[in-house]
């Protein structure tokens, strides 16, 4: 059993609009799997279905062989799926460190009363998660910003904080929604290094949405191309760029133009 995520015949309708049409794909353990397609193809909708924000009209989502369709978003996280957002959504009044500590929430298993009365377990767990958070921030190179407000950081660094925060929840599957968006080539290169490091250090499987084809080519083992909610291609990135259907989805159909 090496399949970690199995999306089975998922259809999502919003009123009369079919956003996802009978989509199936599966992600193997340890892969970096790409999900690409033009704007409005339904990529983020798929993320929302996997993470439990939306309930699909039809179909199922299996994670490690178990049905997680319609599980509440916060329960999906505890099962081992974490995500980032397309438009960065950090906790804006909090420091970088506190943002990351939020990710360790379930690890710090002291109770409300233990926090109020400051019992030993509070100190023990708080110290542990602080050490873990600093270690994680070092991997991303953001430990120097620990005490800064998260929103004071540059765009690229905010992205890193968001990914680090997701990794802190100790997932086995990480969903990245356009991680390289708004980054300069330099930052994008850094990001791919980090993703490779994450994969080996934290034993992660990654499903990512991206528009930067160079980045996708370098990162992904396999990808699915969506257009108007339908799968038009599945396979290796190198084959995708020469596929006729994919080209026409992005650039329009030359033959009938």
């Amino acid at each position, binding site marked *: 059993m090496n399949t970690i995520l199995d999306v089975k015949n998922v259809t999502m309708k919003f009123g009369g609009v079919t956003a996802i049409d009978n989509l199936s794909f599966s992600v193997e353990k340890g892969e970096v799997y790409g999900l690409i397609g033009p704007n409005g193809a339904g990529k983020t909708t798929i993320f929302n279905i996997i993470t439990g924000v939306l309930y699909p009209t039809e179909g199922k989502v299996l994670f490690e062989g178990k049905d997680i369709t319609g599980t509440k978003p*916060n329960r999906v996280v505890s099962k081992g799926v974490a995500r980032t957002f397309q438009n960065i959504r950090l906790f*804006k009044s909090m420091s970088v460190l506190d943002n990351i500590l939020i990710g*360790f929430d379930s690890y710090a298993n002291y109770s409300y009363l233990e*926090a109020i009365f400051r019992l030993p377990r509070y100190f023990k767990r708080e*110290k542990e998660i602080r050490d873990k958070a600093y270690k994680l921030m070092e991997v991303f190179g953001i430990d120097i910003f620990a005490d800064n407000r998260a929103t004071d950081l540059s765009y690229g660094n905010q992205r890193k904080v968001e990914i680090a925060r997701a990794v802190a929840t100790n997932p086995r599957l990480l969903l990245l929604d356009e991680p390289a968006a708004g980054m300069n080539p330099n930052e994008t290169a850094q990001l791919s290094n980090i993703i490779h490091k994450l994969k080996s250090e934290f034993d992660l499987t990654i499903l990512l949405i991206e528009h930067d084809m160079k980045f996708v080519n370098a990162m992904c083992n396999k990808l699915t191309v969506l257009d108007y909610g339908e799968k038009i291609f599945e396979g290796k990135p190198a084959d995708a760029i020469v596929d006729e259907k994919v080209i026409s989805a992005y650039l329009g159909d030359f033959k009938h133009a």
Partner: protein
Amino acid sequence: MFDFKRFIRNIVLILATLAFIYYAQKSMDSYNLSILMNIGIFAILALSYNLINGVAGQFSLEPNGFVAIGAYFTAILIIPPETKLDMFALVDPAPIVASAHMSFLPAVLIGGFAAMLVAMLLALPVFRVRGDYLAIVTLGFGFIIRIFAINNPEYTNGAMGLNDIPEYANFIWIGTIALITFIVMIHIIYSKYGRSMKAVRDDEDAATAMGINTFKIKTLAFMTSAFFEGVGGGLLASMLTTITPDQFSFLLTFQLLIFIVLGGLGSMSGALFASILLGWGLEKLRILDENITLFGHDFGAHPGLRMVVFSIILLLMMLYARRGVFGDRELTDIIRDYKRKKLESKK
């Protein structure tokens, strides 16, 4: 995490505060003492209101309802049974009301727990949906409590209210409980629960995506607020010695809202600071309502001038410090940031 130096510093601060409370109770005149007791009650209420409204970011208008619950429970429990029989003029008190009697501390705690229980019942439907429903529900709840108190004279003596409440609440009680409230709030803020509450305030979707059960966190914040508001209500009842349903109108909530906005939504040090400043300042501004004599010329008395000056101060606050005196940070965070910036500029 466990910092011995900070621990010693905190112990010293707590002991100094307790010493001041004891000193004030023993040697201050009754006028100054009553100002201090007012400040203490306001501090308890503002601190707890700040938890749900400022820290967890759930706009709520509940304090008057919970304060009323705490006040009535405590009052009924500490008034001696024979006094109650004389007092209930409209109808005879219900047997359970007539016979219930206990000492002060358990009565105050029961007031707190009663408010907390009601908060839980309110939270179950309200926090299942998002949006400003909490404000509407709690606003209505305040009115319901008042009408309940007026229309059930066998429990509350109706619109006449309860009087002859034993005056147990001195400044030692009020000051110590205010201190405990402050410590509990700070302990909540600097724990994973406080962080989760702030996360829910900043971005509820992202908080859910981090695995936070937002319903549970909001309910916890609401119940904690309710508990301390109930306790504050009990102390208030015993301090004033009489309570009527009209005392717990929406104006009380409104006043507390001014406190926490002035101090900075989400800042416990801010709420404490605002309670002290406004509790003391509003009393001192009373000279404005009296006859004013300047340079030998008598300007006569202008009743209401106090509130005009108070409003002008609030207006200036909102113009120049829109996010309150402390913003959403604690005093210690501000000092730490200041030190860090100074260190950085030196380099």
